[in-house]
């Protein structure tokens, strides 16, 4: 398919690997922020084909994974109500709450529906005026314009039975949190290209200034990922720290102004707890005053929650890049995609899911050897 095949060319990828090997003289650690890139890297074995001196650290860019447990528990409580249709992206259904997940709510009779586009939830709300329709609005800046438009549409159509449970997160504050941690090992960041498609690149300049780390806007196909890695390494080897765009076919410096205008109207910045990481200041979006009527947290009083994280799950360390998924004792044993202990094992962007899907056989071989 156009714009996919060209960026999967194995011969050009081999050239890229050679070039990377040529420029690297010292050990470096790069963090790919986005879980989609983690999956591309693990699926294609990119980390295993890089020179030994180059280490990739998987970042927290998985919105399903970082949605706070308390918010998941609220979603479960709302979804279990008789008068409610609960709509969500499919990724969320198997994410473990304190006691169960959305699949279990559905098998117990709850009306839980998977939507491809958030606009589907508005359509469902229009078709079911006798029901409360709640959409689980999660995501990074890439998904936020779609979710924002959902609320705008609901307001325009005068739908009073629609609301959104919001848990939006932002990339730049997460990079700042990782870069300011005294334990950080990251020398450069591959920024999540599709986030930049919406937001542009200006927000990253202050981070480069403050932390003196290269940030390279990177795409998702193997050649895109390799080009991001190559440019980050070249900056490190040359002692530069700049914002660079290695994904110009999709990312313009100014981002998408139409999307930014709607985001500014619908959302406002707030502090947000990230599952497994903790509260990161000014790292989330919530509905602005104008759209607060559509906030499911205000509409449904959910109390009596007993939030309880699995004591065995180490997804917080995985999300911060402190351990690899297979370094967790539970990986593939007590924790599998069918019976996950944490969200990183079930999300299509979760690092544990990537290792389970593409590496578990090789990892088992290694254990046996």
């Amino acid at each position, binding site marked *: *398919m156009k714009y996919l095949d060209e960026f999967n060319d194995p011969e050009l990828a081999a050239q890229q690997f050679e070039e990377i090997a040529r420029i690297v003289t010292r050990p470096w650690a790069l963090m790919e922020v986005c879980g989609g890139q983690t999956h591309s890297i693990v699926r294609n074995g990119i980390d295993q084909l890089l*020179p030994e001196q180059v280490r990739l650290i998987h970042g927290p*860019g998985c919105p399903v994974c970082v949605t706070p447990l308390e918010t998941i528990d609220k979603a479960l409580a709302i979804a279990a109500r008789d008068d409610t249709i609960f709509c969500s992206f499919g990724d969320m259904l198997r994410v473990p709450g304190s006691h169960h997940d959305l699949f279990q709510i559905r098998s117990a009779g709850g009306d839980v529906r998977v939507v491809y586009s958030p606009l589907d939830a508005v359509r469902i709300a229009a078709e079911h005026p006798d029901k409360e329709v709640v959409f689980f609005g999660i995501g990074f800046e890439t998904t936020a314009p779609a979710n924002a438009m959902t609320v705008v549409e609901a307001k325009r159509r005068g739908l009073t039975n629609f609301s959104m449970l919001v848990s939006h997160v932002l990339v730049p504050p997460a990079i700042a949190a990782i870069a300011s941690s005294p334990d950080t090992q990251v020398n450069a960041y591959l920024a999540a290209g599709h986030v930049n498609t919406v937001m542009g690149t200006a927000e990253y300049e202050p981070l480069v200034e403050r932390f003196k780390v290269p940030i390279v806007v990177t795409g998702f196909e193997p050649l895109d990922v390799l080009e991001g890695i190559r440019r980050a390494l070249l900056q490190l080897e040359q002692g530069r720290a700049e914002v660079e765009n290695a994904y110009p076919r999709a990312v313009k410096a100014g981002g998408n102004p139409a999307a930014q205008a709607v985001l500014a109207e619908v959302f406002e910045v707030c502090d947000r707890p990230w599952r497994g990481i903790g509260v990161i200041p000014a790292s989330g979006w919530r509905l602005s005053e104008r759209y607060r009527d559509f906030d499911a947290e205000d509409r449904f009083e959910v109390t009596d929650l007993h939030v309880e994280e699995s004591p065995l799950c180490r997804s917080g360390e995985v999300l911060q890049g402190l351990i690899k998924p297979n370094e967790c004792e539970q990986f593939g044993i007590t924790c599998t995609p069918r019976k996950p202990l944490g969200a990183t094992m079930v999300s299509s962007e979760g690092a544990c899911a990537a290792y389970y899907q593409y590496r578990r056989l090789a*990892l088992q071989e290694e254990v046996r050897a």
Partner: protein
Amino acid sequence: MCLGVPGRIEAIRDEQGTPMASVDFGGIRKDVCLAYLPEAEVGDYTLVHVGFAITRIDEASALETLELIRSIGNLAEELGEEPADLAGDPVVGGGGT
């Protein structure tokens, strides 16, 4: 979740005031909201995320990136360098293999 899929805009229509497009993804067609890409035209390639077109894919930039990647290989050849010999063979690192 931040997956974006490239597709070609085949038709554009107005649906109750919202611009919508029929987008072809290598044979599969889907309805896509164009609210964030109002300038899009039939024949454009766009990146689609959860049913929304979020950017136009710029053909010239795509070709430029590919050209750059190709030229890196050529450059190494032209300089007579054997890239793998300089820093050791690209090693199969860490991980499972």
